[in-house]
Structures are given as structure tokens and as C-alpha cells.
């Protein structure tokens, strides 16, 4: 009995050590465990709704996954359409909002000039622009990408401005005394120091972008087969299993983007993870 307890304790110590180690395999296992828990909760919710309402409004996860498999190519086409729209919008917003936010945060004259404009436009729900954009530019891809890009742009711009104002002055003094030009100060200090908070903001933006993409896609679709996941979900209003498959595909798209941002952060902000490991 005592021996068995000792073994159990050893096993527990081993597991907690590996979790702390955060080796790749363990991280994958934790990810899978987390997904299993989520699907478990979904299954419970599905059973509760079925029991209370007597109708299967929320199909269980197994049914949704099987439906995804059945729908195969058509779901993939819509997934792909939504994915490239979202990724393109994120890239446009990142490469415009981030540098502009840094400039506003660092250059006082630009801050005084641009910030009032930003703070008038930023609080307006960007959804309010959708109708105007559809009226002016039609319902094609560029407008859908633009709607998402505008929403993320302001998010990143405001975050970058804030991060640029928090730069440690000793880092700037350090590179200036080493002979850095203005551009080199941005490249060697401002960008690396603000990147971690911008990537955090980018993660938040993925959720925001998906919400706006959904709104844009249900508001107007070009062709039924390639309207994107939003249009697909809307078209499945009377088929809850198909709808659940569409929602699951959207969640998958979000997951892929989060993982990509995580990987990117581990590459470009390697120093932060080394610090964490050594502490």
C-alpha cells in the first residue's frame, strides 16, 4: 500500500515536472486535454438542451465532426475563402496600424495631429461603416476584407501607440549613445520592445476580426458555394447539424491563427522565452 502511494507520488511529481518543462510533446498533450474538456462540456450542453427542449438544437460534437467530414470539399472551400480574407485583412491592418501607432507614440507632433482623429473614429462601432462600404463598393471580396482590416487596424494602432509610449528611456539612451540614427532606434529598440504587446493585441484582434468577418459574410455573399463560413452558417439556418459543422470550422480557423501567432512570437520574441526558462 505504502509502496503504491510512493509510486503514485513519483508519477505525480513526474507529470508536474514535465508540465513545467513544457516540452513540445507535453504542450501538445495539454492542448489535446483542453480540447477534450471543451468537447465534453459541449456534449453535456447538448444533452441538457435535448432533455429540456425535447429537440436537438445543439448537435453533439461527434455529429458535428462527422458532418464536417460529410460536407468535405464544400466546407473546405468556404473555410479557405474565410481564411484568406481574414489573413489578408490581418496583414493589411498589421503593416499599416502597427507602424503608424509606433510613429504616433514616439513623435509628439504626429500624436497631437493624429490622435484626435483616431479617438473620434475609434469608439464608433465599425459595424456602422458596413452599410456605407457595401453601398459604395458593392458586396465583393475587397469590401469584406476592408471591413475586417478597418476593425483590426484601430485595435493595433491604439495598442502600438500605447506600447511605444512605454519604451524604457534607458534603452533609447543606450542606442543613441552608441551612435544610432532615428531609423536604427526604431529598428533596434522601438520595434523589438513593442512586439510582445502587439502580438498579444493581435491575438485579441483575431477574435474581433472573425466576428466582423462573420457579419460581413452574412451581409452579402457573391456565390453560395464560396461565400465563406459566415455565408455557409447563415445558409444552414434550418439544418442545425450543418450549422454546427460551420461553427466548428470557424473555431478551427481561429485556433490555426492563434497557433500561428504563438509560433511567430516564439520565433521573433525568443529572448522572452529564454528568460522565462532561466527564471
Amino acid at each position, binding site marked *: 500500500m505504502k509502496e503504491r502511494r510512493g509510486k503514485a507520488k513519483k508519477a505525480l511529481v513526474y507529470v508536474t515536472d514535465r508540465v513545467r518543462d513544457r516540452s513540445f510533446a507535453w504542450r501538445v498533450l495539454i492542448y489535446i486535454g483542453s480540447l477534450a474538456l471543451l468537447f465534453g462540456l459541449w456534449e453535456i450542453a447538448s444533452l441538457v438542451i435535448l432533455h429540456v427542449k425535447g429537440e436537438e438544437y445543439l448537435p453533439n460534437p461527434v455529429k458535428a465532426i462527422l458532418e464536417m467530414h460529410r460536407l468535405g470539399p464544400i466546407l473546405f472551400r468556404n473555410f479557405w475563402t474565410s481564411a484568406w480574407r481574414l489573413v489578408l485583412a490581418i496583414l493589411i491592418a498589421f503593416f499599416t496600424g502597427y507602424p503608424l501607432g509606433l510613429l504616433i507614440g514616439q513623435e509628439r507632433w504626429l500624436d497631437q495631429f493624429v490622435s484626435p482623429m483616431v479617438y473620434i473614429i475609434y469608439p464608433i462601432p465599425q459595424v456602422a461603416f458596413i452599410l456605407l462600404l457595401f453601398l459604395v463598393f458593392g458586396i465583393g471580396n475587397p469590401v469584406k476584407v476592408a471591413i475586417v482590416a478597418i476593425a483590426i487596424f484601430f485595435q493595433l494602432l491604439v495598442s502600438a501607440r500605447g506600447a511605444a509610449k512605454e519604451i524604457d528611456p*534607458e*534603452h533609447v*539612451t*543606450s*542606442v*543613441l*549613445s*552608441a*551612435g*544610432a540614427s532615428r531609423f*536604427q532606434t526604431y529598428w*533596434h*529598440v522601438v520595434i*523589438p*520592445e513593442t512586439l510582445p504587446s502587439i502580438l498579444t493585441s493581435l491575438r485579441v484582434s483575431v477574435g474581433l476580426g472573425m466576428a466582423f468577418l462573420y457579419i460581413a459574410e452574412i451581409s452579402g455573399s457573391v456565390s453560395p458555394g464560396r461565400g465563406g463560413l459566415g455565408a455557409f452558417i447563415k445558409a444552414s439556418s434550418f439544418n442545425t447539424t450543418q450549422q454546427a459543422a460551420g461553427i466548428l470550422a470557424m473555431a478551427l480557423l481561429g485556433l490555426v491563427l492563434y497557433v500561428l501567432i504563438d509560433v511567430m512570437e516564439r520565433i521573433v*520574441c525568443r*529572448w522572452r522565452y*529564454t*528568460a522565462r526558462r*532561466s*527564471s
Partner: protein
Amino acid sequence: MIDVRDVVVEYGKRAGAVRAVDKISLRVAPGESLALIGPSGCGKSSLLFAMAGLIRPTEGAISVNGEPLNRPRREIALILQNAGLLPWKTVWQNANLSLLLGKEYPRATAQAVLDELGLGEVKRRYPSELSEGMKRRVGIARALSTSPSVMLMDEPLASLDTLTKERIQDLFLRLWVRHAFALVLVTHDIEEAAFLGQRVAVLTDRPARIKEVVENRAMGEQNYRETTAFADTVARLRAALERE
């Protein structure tokens, strides 16, 4: 040679201007060391940053090796309070920052400097993986990487424990003797000023003016910390600081 003539540093404009440095003149010859000591916030760092070419004096002039100073120059190295290391750069990149900014590939001497300071083994590490003492040594390596003729230090050993502080003070002294640069040290630590300054300028509270210059010619003697000359300099500096 660094020559400071009637330098005034003010922050802000017109009526709201705050004077940090008030008509200071001093001269540091090649291979000489000068410590500037004064109360916290008296304006001594402003004076040092002006000597580094980072702040333009409101009045007066600074010249280095006979040339007027109006921007940071390679022959002037600055060591900051927390070593000024960039956390996202490795020890090697931090130590050679001046060379890399000048688009020069670090020379073999850069490796020699790291080895001399005992950092050869950790050159691929990030600052967060180093002890405080090692971080200061990386800051020193960066300052030495351009073979400067003037070395400026802004409270470089603040917040270090006593033993580490003394070890790095000994290192500063060795490097100063070997590389023969003009050294200007800003500190609020009396013993540090007495250990590293051949002359110690005692500054007033803000705005900084030179109150008194204490000569400390015995500095650099073996086991100087244990000598009566050192104790005497410390006592004179303390008295000068306390005097109104």
C-alpha cells in the same frame, strides 16, 4: 581630452524652464579620472549626458579632443546605470552594438574584450540569463568595443551588493590603467568617488554647480581602500557634501 566651458542645461522653455546645470566648467586630460559627486537629482547625469553629446547645452560649449561636441561620437563611450543592455539582443550583440550600428562586423578584438571580462562563455546568452555583475561587465565590454578615448559612467554600480560593487570597481581601475582613457564617473556613492576619481568634483543640489574639487592623487595605490589616504578622502568628501 574633454573640455567643458560654462555649461548650462535647462529643461523646458522660458518662464517654466528648470535649470539642471548652472555654469559648470571642467577639464579632463587624457588618461585622467574625474568623479562627479552630488545629491540624487542634482543634475549630475544631465551634465554627463551633455558630455556624451546626447543633450545640447542651453549655454556654453563642450569639446572633445579639440573638436566641438554636438552629437554622440564613437570616441566617447557611455556606461548607464543598469548597463543599458537590450534584453532582446544576446551578450555578443549587446557588447558590439556600436560596431553593428555602424554596419561594421565585430573585430577579433571584440572577442578579446569579452574574454578579458570573462564573458566569452556566455556570449550567446540573453541579458535575463545573467547575474547583475555579469550584466555590468557586458556594459563595460560594449563601452570598450570602440576603443574610446573618453569613458563616461552614470552611476554604473548602483543597486549592486557591496562585494560585486568592489570587484567591478577594481575591474574599472585595471581597465582605466590599461586602456588609458579619460574617465568621468557620476556617482552619489562617496567611497566609489574616492576609489575611482583622481579628482572629485562635489556638486551642489539642483541646479548643479561645482562646490569644491577634492584632489585624490593617492588613488590607484595598491589596496587603496585600506589606506589612511582613502579614509581621509572619504572624510573630506563627506564634509564637503554636508557643507551648505
